[in-house]
């Protein structure tokens, strides 16, 4: 608890987190206001803004104090004083890499994926989206979080609806409404949480830190509130059976939109479950863990089986996301420090590898104007470098040792084996299924003799290669040397676990002790 209480003010001379949110927002307005006659300047503004934001993110990463669990670089200002709502932002080990990933992904998307029309509006929406995502990860105020969580919908809606494929409007509307239904419950939950906090704090408070430290909710109240939050996040993750918006949204979104959607937007759900579910309502989270574990495992298997059946390469990747996010939820609700830490790490890994997969699928579509697996054949012969890049990314997605996907999945499985044994066992088959559908897809697309249509498939170009390079770099670095990342994630995860233990009397198994049989399946 003491760890959570200590809020360390970073050593940076200016509010870097506020800048991380405001820079892309300002960039978005500037992009929109730039002249129609000079599209290259518009693009330059957008690119510079996103690169600058990414650099700020990396700077924050460099000055982040490793080994501290509390929030760093916090800044807090009154905003709507009548309702006690403040601008309170901070970053800890859980949000740190998500913020950095957001900072890295956006410039890559801006360089790597060109929209086919209306570039100015596309870029403006993209930057607004970045501001919203950053805000969601950094907010330490429930109102502020909801605001960003919800505002993210608007740019994403227009990105899918305006620049997507044939069914784009249907997909965009479905995405918007699904998420909004979840948010409806969360808003009532947030308001109620803030009002009930008055009983313990003496005043209405939307401040996450204040509520977590000072407020105690009655058991049943806590459970209701937890579910109000959890519905919103379960839609966002998406958790089975609320996942049906995802394949549509992913498939219909433009490549850039898919990369962002898979890379960071889905993480709003898993991040939210951890930060606003487990952390804020530990008792309820522990009480309901079997529901979430079961849904997560169903998601893993369902996503994998569905992915195997897909004829469309992009839809296949989309369903693989359902499976991968199941792993993250499994890790979160296993309540061991390895599994939770692995879950946080897997959020980043999935963002990197699935983001890269969507980029590659987008490149295939650019060349062949089809995503149907049956139309593609023998690409390895004509584009070996492209095939190699696809291979590395795909293996990372499968979770092959030495690449980043392995670290996260391994930690999740090993951690949950103690406390959620049978769920872990079933989930492990998901890893095998992942190998099945991805390798099979690779075989069908890349192996064999290219037919006429595929024999002119263009090799990876320099710009495309440069965009993929950071992804592959992260994939290999995190796979070989995950320690720096885990060192920063772990203290915050442990602090959450300690909080759960303190509030509920639950005892997490000691790390890496595999023989405890009493961990129990429930």
């Amino acid at each position, binding site marked *: 608890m003491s760890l959570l209480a200590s809020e360390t003010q970073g050593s940076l001379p200016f509010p870097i987190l506020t800048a991380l949110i405001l820079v892309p927002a300002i960039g978005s307005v500037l992009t929109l206001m730039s002249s129609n006659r000079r599209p290259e300047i518009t693009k330059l503004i957008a690119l510079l803004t996103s690169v600058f934001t990414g650099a700020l993110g990396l700077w924050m990463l460099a000055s982040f104090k490793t080994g501290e669990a509390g929030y760093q670089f916090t800044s807090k200002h009154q905003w*709507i004083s009548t309702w006690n709502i403040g601008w309170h932002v901070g970053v800890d080990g859980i949000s740190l890499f998500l913020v950095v990933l957001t900072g890295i992904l956006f410039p890559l998307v801006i360089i790597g994926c060109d929209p086919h029309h209306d570039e100015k509006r596309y870029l403006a929406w993209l930057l607004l989206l970045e501001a919203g995502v950053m805000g969601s990860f950094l907010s330490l105020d429930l*109102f502020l979080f909801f605001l960003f969580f919800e505002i993210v919908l*608007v740019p994403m809606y227009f990105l899918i609806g305006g620049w997507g494929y044939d069914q784009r409007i249907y997909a965009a*509307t479905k995405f918007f409404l699904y998420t909004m239904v979840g948010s*409806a*419950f969360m808003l009532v939950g947030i308001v109620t949480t803030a009002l009930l906090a008055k009983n313990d704090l003496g005043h209405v408070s939307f401040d996450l830190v204040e509520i977590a430290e000072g407020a105690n909710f009655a058991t049943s109240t806590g459970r209701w509130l937890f579910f109000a939050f959890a519905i919103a996040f379960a839609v966002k993750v998406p958790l089975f059976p609320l996942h049906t918006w995802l394949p549509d949204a992913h498939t219909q979104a433009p490549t850039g939109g898919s990369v962002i959607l898979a890379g960071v937007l889905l993480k709003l759900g898993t991040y939210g479950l951890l930060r606003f579910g487990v952390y804020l309502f530990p008792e309820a989270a522990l009480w309901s863990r079997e529901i979430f574990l079961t849904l997560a495992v169903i998601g893993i298997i369902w996503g994998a089986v569905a992915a195997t059946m897909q004829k469309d390469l992009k839809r296949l990747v989309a369903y693989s996301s359902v499976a991968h996010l199941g792993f993250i939820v499994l890790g979160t609700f296993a309540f061991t420090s390895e599994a939770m830490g692995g879950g946080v790490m897997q959020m980043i890994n999935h963002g990197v590898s699935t983001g890269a997969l969507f980029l590659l699928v987008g490149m295939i579509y650019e060349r062949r104007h089809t995503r149907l697996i049956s139309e593609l054949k023998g690409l390895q012969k004509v584009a070996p470098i492209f095939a190699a890049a696809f291979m590395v990314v795909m293996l990372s997605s499968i979770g092959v040792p030495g690449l980043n996907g392995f670290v996260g999945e391994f930690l999740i499985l090993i951690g949950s084996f103690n406390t959620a044994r049978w769920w872990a066992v079933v989930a492990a088959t998901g890893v095998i299924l992942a190998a099945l559908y991805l390798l099979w897809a690779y075989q069908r697309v890349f192996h064999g003799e290219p037919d006429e249509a595929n024999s002119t498939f263009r090799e990876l170009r320099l710009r495309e290669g440069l965009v993929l390079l950071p992804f592959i770099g992260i994939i290999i670095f995190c796979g070989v040397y995950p320690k720096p990342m885990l060192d920063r994630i772990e203290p915050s995860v442990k602090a959450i676990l300690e909080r759960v233990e303190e509030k509920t009397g639950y005892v997490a198994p000691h790390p890496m002790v595999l023989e405890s049989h009493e961990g129990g399946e429930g």
Partner: protein
Amino acid sequence: MGAQTINYPAIDWLAIAPLIILLSGMMINLVIAALTRVWPRAWYAIGTVVLAVAAIIVEMFIWHDINQDGSRIIINNALSIDHFAMFCWIGIAGALALVSLSTAEYLRREDLEGPEVYALYICAAIGAMIMTASNDMIVLFLGLETLSIALYVLAASHRRRPDSQESGLKYFILGGFASAFFLYGIALIYGSTGTTNISGIGNVLSTEVFVNGDDAMLLAGIALLIVGLAFKVAVVPFHFWTPDVYQGAPTPVTSYMASVGKFAAFAALLRVVTTALPTRAEDWRPVIWVLAILSVVVGSVLAVVQTDVKRMLAYSSISHAGFMMIGIESIGHSGDVEGLPATLLYLMIYSVLVIGTFTVVSLVTRTGDDGSDIGSFRGLGKERPALALAMTVFLLAQAGMPLTSGFIAKFGVIQAAAANESYAIAIVAMVASVIAALLYLRIMISMWLSDEESGDDKREAIKVPFSAGIVVAGSAFFTLLVGVWPGWLIDAAQAALQLAK
């Protein structure tokens, strides 16, 4: 010798100065109109805006005056001059200014130029202001009729459109019916309490104990009163006139009905429930609960299946009225602490939103005011990006998206509901607002995302006249400003809590 002297009440001239300004302005308008030939262009509109602004300035003075001297009841207990009344007066005068501006070019386009529309606007505003400040049921009724009769005529004021005539007639017949209910309610309440004074009724009801069963007349009176006002604010099941009237009336008039009409009727309802009937909350609260739930659900669901934008917005206004009812429902639990500011905030925000929205609609409907089909919006994003962007802001705000005023409005109401543990109503309302979001998305899709423009290329190009541009830009600015920096408006609504009783 038996001549009786009449005791004239003392009159607080400052407090009723806004009413006098508007009234004399209206008279001058009519006299000049009768004596001179029709003035071309927007001179009448400019005159009305000047009047409205003058009224707002005086209202600000009165607000300041109340800050120092406290609120008071004037003219023989007829009018309450308090922050609540001033908040509403400023809102109504603001709406008058905005709608007059948006009407100016509309009338020119439709070849209807003439002064009487503005006189009727002002007349309706006076009625609305009297309603919001009235401390006597009879005064309230006078205000209601002044407002309503002006609106009946306004609804029918497009002389060449049969739809407009139909709209006016429908509104008149159903409105007259509702007024009768309302008046009968007053009579019954007078019968059981012996007074028509609103604060007087409150005093009587707080001291007098009805023996079991004896309060039937009072309850019937309350019920009829609620029916009359529910008709005016258009909540389900008293909403049937709304779609037809909103669709048929000239579009600027529709925006005036949706803003000023709702403002006045809701303010009256608020004053009646907080001042006259707080002790009978157990009796009227369940009724309001049902009205609120029905309105948010039915309004949202029926809005989605419409194809005419004006009809959609009419149903969406029913759903918004349901949201405001939630604020009133929470007054029934714990008094005016949470519900009153939340409802006032919602009213102010919604009025600006609805004026902005309908102003865009009136530009898009083009000459003849007939093109309010959703197809008329197709390609607006390409043709008039700035207009489409403003409309997007209004629609997102109506859907309750953060960083717009609509979110603040919804948040306030939901907070009021949650504070009184009305969780069911809060969740139903939020889910209904998701359904309603589909409707706003449909308009946005039409504006931005549908690219087939072939077929109706012969459509008239949309002109954005300067005056309407000011209204749209101003409303959009207000919408975003309150979304980002709502503190001042919330504080103003909070100040309205000190009612003069």
